[in-house]
């Protein structure tokens, strides 16, 4: 079974994003970029399935600009066997990404798609569900545990009230939550080896998908700042202030 792992290049999670002065978006020039943390977790899960003998090949795929090659190299350094870049310099939304991924799925015929539940830049939490819908496959979103037996995948999902388990017939889409696993680091020898692994580039506009967004970003602004607070010295003072000044207790 092949496992397909979509990965996105995003502003590193340790960087505090800054809104661009012209309000068009968030500064990415000269900012450290990395693989979306949820995608690292999804990739780790795919690698573990291969190591357990439940998958034969792990393919990383990124939809994005030329520079997204760097996250695909990282994916291969972590252990992906090969990578595909569906290249476009356009700003694309999950609707378009899921269409392009569907085209890749039709070509590669994976038995499982393991992807992150959300990207930490647009925080949409949509691409996995949209891709599953387009393929007519079942979905196991917000996964914290994944087990494959007899052509089925059991997925424990983090839901508002606790943990829900569903059983899905393969092929299926799973979207990884934080506690699914702890992703490995790429070792130096593996980083070297990854340079020799195959990376195929496909032009996004060759796949017959309209790249025009349906959701237009009109402006991006800083959220309102909170006003500076005060330091209190004793719990009595704190309780007093909460009662008389803030009037919350």
């Amino acid at each position, binding site marked *: 079974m092949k496992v397909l792992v979509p990965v996105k290049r995003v*502003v590193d*999670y340790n960087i*505090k994003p800054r809104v661009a002065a012209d309000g068009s978006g*968030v500064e990415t020039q000269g900012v450290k970029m990395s693989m979306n943390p949820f995608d690292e977790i999804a990739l780790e899960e795919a690698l573990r399935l291969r190591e357990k003998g439940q998958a034969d090949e792990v393919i990383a795929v990124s939809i994005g600009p030329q520079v997204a090659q760097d996250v695909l190299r990282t994916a291969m350094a972590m252990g992906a066997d090969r990578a595909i870049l569906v290249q476009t310099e356009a700003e694309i939304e*999950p*609707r378009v990404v899921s*269409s392009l991924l569907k085209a890749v799925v039709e070509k590669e015929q994976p038995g499982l798609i393991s992807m992150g539940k959300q990207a*930490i830049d*647009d*925080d*949409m*939490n*949509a*691409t996995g*569900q*949209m891709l*599953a*819908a*387009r393929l*007519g496959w*079942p*979905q196991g*979103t*917000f996964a914290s545990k994944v087990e494959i037996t007899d052509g089925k995948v*059991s997925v424990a*999902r983090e*839901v*508002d009230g*606790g*943990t*829900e*388990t*569903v*059983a899905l*017939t393969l092929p*299926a889409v799973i979207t990884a*939550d*934080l*506690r699914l696993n702890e992703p490995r680091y790429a070792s130096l020898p593996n980083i070297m080896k990854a340079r020799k692994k195959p990376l195929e580039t496909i032009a996004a506009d060759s796949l017959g998908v309209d790249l025009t967004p*349906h*959701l*237009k*970003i*009109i402006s*991006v*602004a800083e959220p309102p700042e*909170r006003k500076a*607070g*005060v*330091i*209190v*010295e004793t*719990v*009595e003072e*704190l*309780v007093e*202030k*909460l009662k008389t000044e*803030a009037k919350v*207790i």
Partner: protein
Amino acid sequence: MTALVLIEAENGVIRQASRSAIAAASRFGDVDALLLGETGAEAASKLPGIRKVLHVPALKHALAEPAAALLAGLASSYSHILSATSSTGKNILPRLAGLLDAQPISDVVAIQDDATFVRPIYAGNALATVQSSDSVKIMTIRSSSFDPVNEDGGSASIEVLDAPADDGKSNFVKLEQSQSDRPELEVARVVISGGKGLKDASNFHTLLEPIADKLGAAIGASRAAVDSGFAPNEMQVGQTGKVVAPELYIATGLSGAIQHLAGMKDSRVIVAINIDPEAPIFKVADYGMVGDLFELLPALAKAL
């Protein structure tokens, strides 16, 4: 224009987050509600401002596959389809959007007009104003940004619908719920949260619960606290956990990483207790106390 809201019931009661989504939907025109599962239709019919309740008792577990298929069949009668930004809404509505080739609009915090919305991006470090050209606009609503409609006041009709044909590829196995008598995190007036600084699960309980009891507070946790097993996953507050905006949020032994702030920085009053005066949580706190939580929390419990 008519909006359809996917609502959720718990023990026969409509969740507050769903009532916030109804409040948001009423900006667009008439509102119908869709309820999955056996219970809650009565309560749904009493919500103010609902035209009719579509009730699908057969979809007991609200699995995304049949739910999205059902919604896709109803979509042509509606201009907007909404739900709360709940785990159910986030599971079902993007799948519906995939079926309709629409771009969902996640976690809307403000509605400017029928097609223009504001939503947080980058863990709430920026607010994007977005405009949708889809004929049916599909969106999830951040409950803390819209005052919920009341529980009573309406008398909508109830129409029972059958579940759509099922291909049997997705099956519910079980739901493990942690029982708690405390208020739900997202609706509590006061939340006290603990982080890695609590050191272990037993401290988490013995230090936070007495204060929560006195204030009628819900208990929350940072990701590090959940990962370390101090608290179950549904207590996580943040970018990838629950988003809360209570009257009072007390953050103890947590540093205030941007991913955590994303889930609580719209709280009305924030209190931070941390031993490190440089901890970023103090930047958003109205009242800060620098010190050892192992001394301060018992003292606070006593002082309340």
